[in-house]
């Protein structure tokens, strides 16, 4: 090799190294999302496209809330929590109870004032988040701690926990479906340039984005988040540096559970009903989203969730029975190209 070639290679190597980290084929997620966003334009009329996109984004946000908790718990604690769906359901039920309770005393749910509607809605979600966070902490201490380190036993024991939690819902609230109350001003839609834009999905999107930004900021800009990110990569080393990682485990578990709970509350308002088995229905989607996005990655959950939400809605319109198929197809395609999911652990 001549001198000039050596220099060239050395330059490239230096430039590569000074850049912010190697990212294998980082164009893939962007390409995937773009394709999913744009392809349907060819097939659907613009107005319907906008409506579908909004509901797709909303569904995506809800899926993000559920799967991000699962993904983070798996990434940080290396725990497979199959009871996550049950936490989702509990969030919906606590939200339901909180809403009904507050409404009975203040009537904010049925009022016309947007402000009171928003207030009661947020309070119900906060109640759900806190309640399930507590439930999550209890679950982590009692059920998860004994099985750290063995994914197989985590599967076993969390399945048992899921059964218990679901049955507890049936015991406390009864086994039947209940209609979920929706704040008055959230119902309905606006007509913008002949396009029907439902109000509630927009609210879901906004809240979802806010929560994503909160989580993102905590992870990226705070010391706590930094330690969590370090722990996703190497929990042992974090211990060795003097941080009680078990406290962080519990905290992350609580946070992940709270996210799922908020997702549950908003999902219930979206479909306007709650039933005890709703956890089981959503867990599969959450799993698929988490796998597609990459376990342990917040951004991955968001991107994966949006992909699944959007594709589901578009295909449901075009080929009604094929909606589920497209989700599975996405899973197969993404795993074939990148077996670890779109975003590797910890990003």
């Amino acid at each position, binding site marked *: 090799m001549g001198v000039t070639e050596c220099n060239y290679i050395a330059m490239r190597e230096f430039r590569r190294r000074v850049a912010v980290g190697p990212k294998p084929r980082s164009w893939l997620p962007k390409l995937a999302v773009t394709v999913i966003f744009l392809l349907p334009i060819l097939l659907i009329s613009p107005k319907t496209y906008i409506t579908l996109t909004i509901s797709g984004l909303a569904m995506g946000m809800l899926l993000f809330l559920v799967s991000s908790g699962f993904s983070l718990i798996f990434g940080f604690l290396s725990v*497979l929590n199959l009871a996550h769906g049950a936490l989702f359901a509990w969030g919906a039920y606590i939200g339901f109870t909180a809403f009904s309770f507050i409404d009975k005393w203040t009537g904010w749910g049925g009022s016309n004032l947007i402000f009171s509607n928003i207030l009661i809605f947020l309070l119900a979600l906060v109640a759900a988040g806190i309640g399930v966070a507590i439930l999550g902490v209890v679950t982590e201490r009692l059920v998860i701690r004994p099985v750290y380190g063995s994914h197989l036993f985590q599967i076993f024991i969390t399945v048992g926990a899921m*059964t*218990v939690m679901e*049955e507890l819902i049936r015991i406390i609230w*009864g086994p039947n479906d209940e209609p979920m109350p929706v704040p008055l001003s959230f119902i309905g839609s606006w007509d913008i340039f002949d396009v029907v834009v439902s109000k509630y999905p927009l609210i879901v999107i906004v809240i979802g984005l806010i929560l994503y930004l909160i989580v993102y900021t905590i992870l990226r800009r705070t010391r706590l988040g930094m330690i969590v990110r370090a722990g996703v990569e190497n929990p042992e080393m974090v211990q060795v540096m003097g941080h009680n990682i078990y406290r962080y485990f519990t905290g992350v578990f609580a946070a992940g559970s709270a996210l799922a709970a908020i997702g549950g509350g908003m999902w219930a308002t979206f479909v306007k009903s709650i039933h005890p088995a709703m956890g089981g229905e959503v867990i*599969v989607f959450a799993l698929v989203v*988490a*796998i597609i996005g990459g376990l342990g990655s917040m951004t991955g959950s968001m991107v994966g969730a949006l992909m699944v939400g959007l594709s589901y809605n578009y295909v449901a319109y075009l080929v009604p029975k094929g909606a589920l198929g497209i989700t*599975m197809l996405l899973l197969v395609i993404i*795993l074939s190209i990148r077996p670890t999911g779109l975003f590797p652990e910890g990003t």
Partner: protein
Amino acid sequence: MSKENLNPVQTFRLREKEDRFRNPYFFLRILLLAFFLVTPFLFRSFEILDVVLKIIIFSALVASYDVILGYTGIVSLGHVLYFGIGCYFVGVFMGKLGWTSYSHLTLAFLMAIVISGILSVLIGLFSLRIRAIFFAMVTLAFMEFTFILSSQLRSITGGEDGISFKLPGILAIDFSYGKFLGIEFTGRLISYYFILILSFILFLLMLRFVHSPVGRVLQSIRDNEQRSIALGYRTYLFQVIASSFASCVAAVTGGCFAMWVRYVSPDSSLSVSIMLDVLLMVIVGGMGTLYGGIFGAAFLMVTRAFLPKLQVLIASLLPGVPFAIRLSERWLFYFGLLFIIIVYFFPKGIVGTAQEIIARRKDEDK
């Protein structure tokens, strides 16, 4: 093959074969088989016969799951998919298509086996190379997907309502041959024996598979995959073989189940709750012991049949408050608690822990 020229491995295996009949467990198993054979004569109640046969069918299913979980070390959460395929082939052939003859029944079984085998090979090729827990989740997702698919394709699968059907000839309910030893030889009875014999054969097949050279390689893969690869085994290939064998067995058990209940629907053959049941049976019975499946299945079926009765009893004792009534009604709740306790205290399953205790006692005696 003279005794002097055998290498150590062959000597060991030869001795193992000879010891087989002196093993005390062997007689226990013969006893169990005898019990299953005479059950219809011991218990005249149909309900008990139903429970016993379900134990038999699910023992075979759980054993097939144990082949991949306990012996090969693959965690699949979608094994019941193949069970469902077996159910549906029988159901669709007999019911929807109205092909009621013995040869059609056989064809249904054969097709179920073939499709299950191919499907598991495809899924294996695709997902066994990704991380183990991914595989678990992907298989779960596939099973859920098929569940929803079968609920939606009404024209083929009868949708959520499912398909009811009749069995041909001597297996049909209304067939009667006359009395023998005090009981009537109905189609039900004949189906019972047919399924019993079929399950027995399946069990023998699985035992043979697990103790064969292939089976031993699988165990070595389970224990230390890196080592097996270093020894030159294409672990991946073996895992796919084990997976397809287990899925074919599961398909046959599915067919048997459909035959017995003469009904197939997504809930009864493809639901996640069946998969959970299998998990439960495996954990109670113990992994890596095919016979544990029998114990686990027995445990689950008996409690399933027995607990609701217990619950009615308790409900009659408690006050009429809705909460209290529901507390007693949801026996599944206590079941879940019991399950968690079992996983916590008996990680090797009841059978596995028992084996361990016995082995430890033997060590102490020495």
